[in-house]
């Protein structure tokens, strides 16, 4: 296998239990070297299973996969040396201090904190004031930073981050993505999974996944650019009645709640006046409508419905 991509999967299938419940269904995609790749999908879509297959923790029933040109089954020993893995669950030792955790993971990977300090410096300085604190007593954001430091301490070539921002406050989430961008500039290929659609646009390329199947792989810009037709955001005083009325309106192709608005697409050209009149007739007031660019989430919903 040529070492073309950071990660490549071909028809990977994984089932669980006696009933052969499919978790990953013939998944194929690749991650380019030095790319920040996002695996986006709801809980239970199969993201963690894919991560575990790639990090050699699980064996796939069918298909092949490579990390840096190394086959996940045969070359598991080699892969374990060159990847950094941060599981979804907080997985450091809560009874060890920040510094002890970092030291421990450095020795496990046969290196020292000093040797690769440059790589983690920027992240570590933020938690350094607490280095004598037990890891279990850190806040969610700081735990995440420490876990990232521990996953980076051996200067991995590919970094696997499984839902790193789940349960982390919005500010820390934003900081976390800033850090990832900097790491990418150091030449580390990163694959990150997340259920948050708003984080998708921060990746170079993303794969949308649902029920173990990849729905689409592309850059976020292409995905939103490929959205068919124009999308409108409609707002009124009563959300439930608004959705109900819109669905009855013959020109409406699709509509769903999206925050405080209803996102609506139309079969033909959009005419504001008759729709407004219709909605007023249904007993709604404070009606506002405006054209909006489609987001990744809109695209995802579109894919799910087709």
């Amino acid at each position, binding site marked *: 296998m040529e070492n073309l991509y950071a990660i490549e999967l071909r028809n990977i299938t994984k089932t669980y239990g006696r009933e052969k419940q499919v978790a990953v269904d013939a998944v194929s995609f690749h991650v380019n070297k030095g790319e920040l790749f996002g695996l986006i999908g709801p809980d239970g879509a199969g993201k963690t299973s894919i991560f575990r297959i790639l990090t050699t923790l699980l064996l796939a029933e069918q298909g092949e996969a490579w990390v840096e040109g190394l086959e996940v089954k045969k070359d598991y020993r080699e892969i374990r040396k060159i990847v950094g893995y941060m*599981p979804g669950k*907080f997985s450091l030792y809560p009874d060890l201090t920040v510094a002890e955790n970092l030291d421990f993971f450095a020795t*496990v990977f046969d290196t020292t904190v000093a040797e690769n300090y440059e790589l983690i410096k920027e992240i570590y300085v933020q938690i350094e004031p607490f280095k004598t604190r037990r890891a279990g007593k850190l806040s969610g954001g700081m735990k995440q930073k420490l876990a990232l430091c521990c996953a980076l301490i051996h200067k991995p070539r590919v970094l696997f981050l499984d839902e790193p921002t789940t349960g982390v406050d919005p500010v820390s989430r934003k900081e976390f993505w800033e850090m990832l961008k900097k790491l990418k500039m150091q030449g580390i290929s990163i694959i990150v999974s997340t259920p948050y659609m708003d984080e998708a646009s921060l990746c170079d390329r993303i794969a949308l996944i649902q029920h173990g199947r990849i729905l689409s792989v592309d850059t976020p810009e292409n995905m939103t650019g490929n959205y068919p037709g124009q999308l409108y955001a409609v707002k009124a005083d009563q959300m439930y009645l608004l959705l109900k009325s819109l669905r009855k309106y013959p020109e409406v192709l699709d509509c769903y709640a999206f925050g405080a608005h209803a996102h609506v697409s139309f079969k033909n050209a959009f005419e504001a006046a008759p729709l407004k009149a219709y909605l007023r007739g249904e007993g709604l007031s404070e009606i506002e409508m405006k054209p909006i660019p489609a987001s990744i989430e809109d695209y995802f919903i579109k894919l799910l419905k087709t």
Partner: protein
Amino acid sequence: MKQFVNFVKKEFFHVMRDRKTLLILFGMPVAQILIFGFALTNEVKNSRLIVFDQAKDPASQELITKIEASRYFEVERSVADQQQMEAVFRQGKIKMALVFPAGFNASLLHEHKAQVQVIADASDPNTANMLTNYLSAIVLDYQSTLSKDLVVPYRIVPEVRMLYNPQLKGAPNFVPGVMALVLMLVCVMMTAISIVKEKETGTMEVLLVSPFKPILVIISKAVPYLILSVVNVASILLLSVFVLELPVNGSVLLLFGESILFIITCLSVGIFISVKTDSQQVAMLISLMGMLLPTVLFSGFMFPIENMPYPLQLFSNIVPAKWFYLIVKSIMIKGLGFGAIWKETLILTGITVVLLGISLKSFKIRLS
């Protein structure tokens, strides 16, 4: 090597920072030795005894004084009639009664033969048995002082010597038992839990995705418990020597060597349990039910194996604690050397090798 040392250091941090683990580790042996040594003893001391003396003659008085002088009995009081005696038994305060018939001394003198009645509360059969034995011994002793001057044809006097434990103390029996029990608990349960904990918290996932060899993960988790268990063996021995006054008659070095062998047996069981389970509770239950119970039942420390049905006797052979118990007894109490226990050692080594092989082989290099 540096990786390994650091890993072991980390394990020590875990143990030292968890107060509950520490308490179980070091509190349990001390508590068990003290409980078995001072509370749960089947030696009988100062049992209450009532006397229904219908004779009230010199012979009966002399015998009562003799009984009072022994450390086993405390003569509570005399009762006047049968009903009163039965009432006292029903109250449950009295374990035994001694009844002298009228004219006890006279029959002794004239017929060279007299009877006393011993009544025991057998609702606790072991105690009743033991007490009647003690009492009979005192009566026999009194009889022999009476017949000292007489020449009786055909007299066989058994000279009884209780070897290794002349005072029939309980400690020689339970100290080896407690040692087996404590080591079993510490090594099996603690090791199983500490490995399963890594699985439960997800750190095992991270450790597996590292160049560190999976087998070394397991071994470095076992090493601290090996060391702590040796400390435990030492503390049990110190307690038994200085508190229970039970010396180690054989070689201390040999005793430690055999203990380390048994500790490795237990660690292998612990590793095996940890490989097969995914939660700390299950690991704990299996260690307790699957290991502790057989240890208590089949090591011969509480219940004699010879009295068990044959299939259970066969089963007891695969309980490692049984062999360890025999070894410790031989070294500690009988003061025997390796020559006397090589067979038990060989069997224990065999069990250990098999268990260690199985548990290391079943350790997975991936999840599930």
